[in-house]
């Protein structure tokens, strides 16, 4: 079954091939595994970009295929990041605390160790107590499970409430935006249990491992590439065949789909939840490469960017989302990172760190108006021309 699906979907194979070649290329050029042409920090940037591609294809499925303009998927991404970040921070602090206490004459009790870890982690918000949500932070498997379960459950409950009352279109977008805003505001509070606006930091260090950042960065890069490949296959499977047909039909005329006997709300809930879970995984891979997560990452604007990437890349095609996320996020870090030379107009200097957002907004408007199919639409011209070629 899987075989026949992959064989009939050649574009998936092409994508996997490109991804594999890209991964190989980076590996050969990276510091830890190859020529050292690509710096460790750039390997991290590329790895993070792959994670952004993963959430972008999730966004494309939920918006481009199912027609739900969710402006909240970055919340799920952030939750995935927090879930893994809690373990990373706990385990590392635990190692440090145990290491420093081991010199004492009297061995420390487990309560003392726990107190010391608490003070280390929560000192910045004036506390040393472990909040309830940290109950499983000591366990990697449980926090890994939380990476998919928590976003999945949140999406399930939120989606059930929203879809059941048949909230659609702009109202639904606003609702998802409100959800993100609420979550981010909650996390900003010191007593949220997640260190308020300090967020979680030091996530780039792998507890219990003495591997250097060069090695860790390439491993996370590989993990991100594998996750993107698997995610791509998963979503290509979902949008292929009859499921894809029903999902696109819901996007185009959901009332009509109901009269064919399909329970539209279940389908939306399925798509919303599965994409939220993948967004969680993407976040869990992203933040260890970023090293820090704080509530600002979940701010509503992040989810809007996500929609912009997908629109610019071309929605309704998975590779379009990948192109959009790669292109815009790399360009964005180039502009905001001071990579782009400022333009001196004599009377005014265009400083790209300030003007980049304006440029992005303009391109979004232009693409939406003039090229609704986005960058991915260019591939249509190529294939159409090729089809026309021999006949002419």
């Amino acid at each position, binding site marked *: *079954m899987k075989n*026949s699906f992959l064989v009939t979907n050649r574009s998936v194979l092409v994508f996997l091939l490109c991804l594999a070649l890209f991964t190989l290329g980076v590996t050969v050029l990276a510091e830890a595994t190859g020529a050292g042409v690509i710096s460790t920090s750039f390997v991290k940037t590329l790895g993070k970009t792959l994670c952004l591609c993963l959430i972008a294809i999730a966004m494309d499925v939920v918006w481009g295929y199912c027609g739900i303009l969710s402006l909240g998927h970055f919340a799920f991404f952030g939750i995935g990041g927090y879930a893994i970040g809690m373990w990373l921070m706990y385990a590392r602090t635990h190692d440090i605390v145990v290491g420093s206490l081991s010199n004492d004459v009297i061995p420390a009790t487990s309560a003392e160790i726990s107190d010391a870890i608490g003070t280390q982690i929560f000192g910045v918000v004036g506390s040393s107590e472990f909040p309830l949500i940290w109950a499983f932070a000591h366990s990697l498997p449980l926090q890994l499970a939380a990476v998919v379960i928590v976003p999945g459950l949140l999406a399930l409950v939120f989606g059930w409430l929203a879809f059941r009352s048949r909230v659609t279109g702009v109202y639904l977008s606003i609702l998802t935006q409100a959800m993100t805003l609420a979550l981010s505001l909650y996390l900003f509070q010191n007593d949220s249990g997640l260190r308020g606006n300090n967020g979680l930091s030091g996530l780039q260090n792998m507890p219990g491992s003495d591997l250097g950042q060069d090695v860790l960065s390439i491993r996370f890069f590989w993990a991100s590439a594998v996750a993107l490949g698997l995610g791509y296959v998963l979503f290509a499977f*979902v949008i292929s*065949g*009859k*499921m894809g*047909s*029903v999902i*696109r*039909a819901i996007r*185009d*005329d959901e*009332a*009509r789909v*109901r*009269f*064919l*006997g*399909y*329970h*539209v709300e*279940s*389908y939306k809930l*399925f798509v919303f939840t599965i994409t939220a879970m993948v967004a969680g995984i993407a976040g869990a891979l992203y933040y260890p490469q970023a090293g820090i997560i704080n509530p600002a990452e979940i701010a509503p604007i992040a989810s809007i960017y996500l929609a912009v990437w997908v629109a610019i890349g071309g929605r309704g095609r998975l590779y379009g989302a990948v192109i959009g996320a790669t292109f815009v996020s790399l360009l964005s870090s180039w502009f905001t990172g001071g990579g782009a030379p400022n333009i001196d107009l004599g009377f005014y200097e265009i400083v790209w760190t300030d003007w980049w957002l304006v440029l992005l907004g303009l391109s979004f408007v232009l693409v939406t108006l003039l090229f609704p199919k986005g960058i991915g639409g260019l591939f249509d011209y190529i294939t159409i021309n090729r089809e026309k070629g021999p006949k002419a």
Partner: protein
Amino acid sequence: MSALLEVSGVSVTFDGFRAINNLSLSINEPELRAVIGPNGAGKTTFMDIITGKTKPDTGHVLWGEQSRNLLGMSESAIAREGIGRKFQKPTVFEAQTVRENLAMALKNKRGPFDVLFYRKSAEGATRIEELAAEVGLTEQLPRTAGELSHGQKQWLEIGMLLAQDPRLLLVDEPAAGMTPAEREHTTDLLVRAAKTRAVIVVEHDMEFVRRLNCKVTVLHEGSVLAEGSLDHVTANPQVIEVYLGR
């Protein structure tokens, strides 16, 4: 032979305007029934009520052997009960191919996971070919539905209706935009379908209704004005008045 569908005492008000007024009607299985009536008589609204699109203020809609009440059910659940509908304005999924449209309508399990793991079967493909042949769209199967002519879209929607294999077909003005030959074909199709199921056809065209050769219900201002053979109802002075007086 008991009634498959029984509508009794149904009323609907839109912003104070009574579109359906104490309407009662029942249909057997199998049976072919034509519903006629002037514009705004409430024919489409009547179908909206049966299919769950519009909730009536009062009345009952009872269905099947167990006389289940359809009124509390969602549109999709009603469709799964075996009630299929063709809309007045042809509504097909224009961005998808004719084949995909038919495949979606095919009678199969409707749950998300059934659909996710559904893979094309030989029987399904044969059934689609048969349906396409029946509605004359064999050539068009790989085409995008949006490219079809108005008449072809009508056909596609009729094909989708047959694909669902419903017990009750509600067909709203199927012949609009069709050539005389196509109209004749539609009549044949509906008459054949009605050999094994209940079919309710709404149509303005009297010639069309005459060819259906079945019991006719005349709606006017949301209630039944007359019922019987076409000759019987057209002889009814009230019906003449309604039709001539509009």
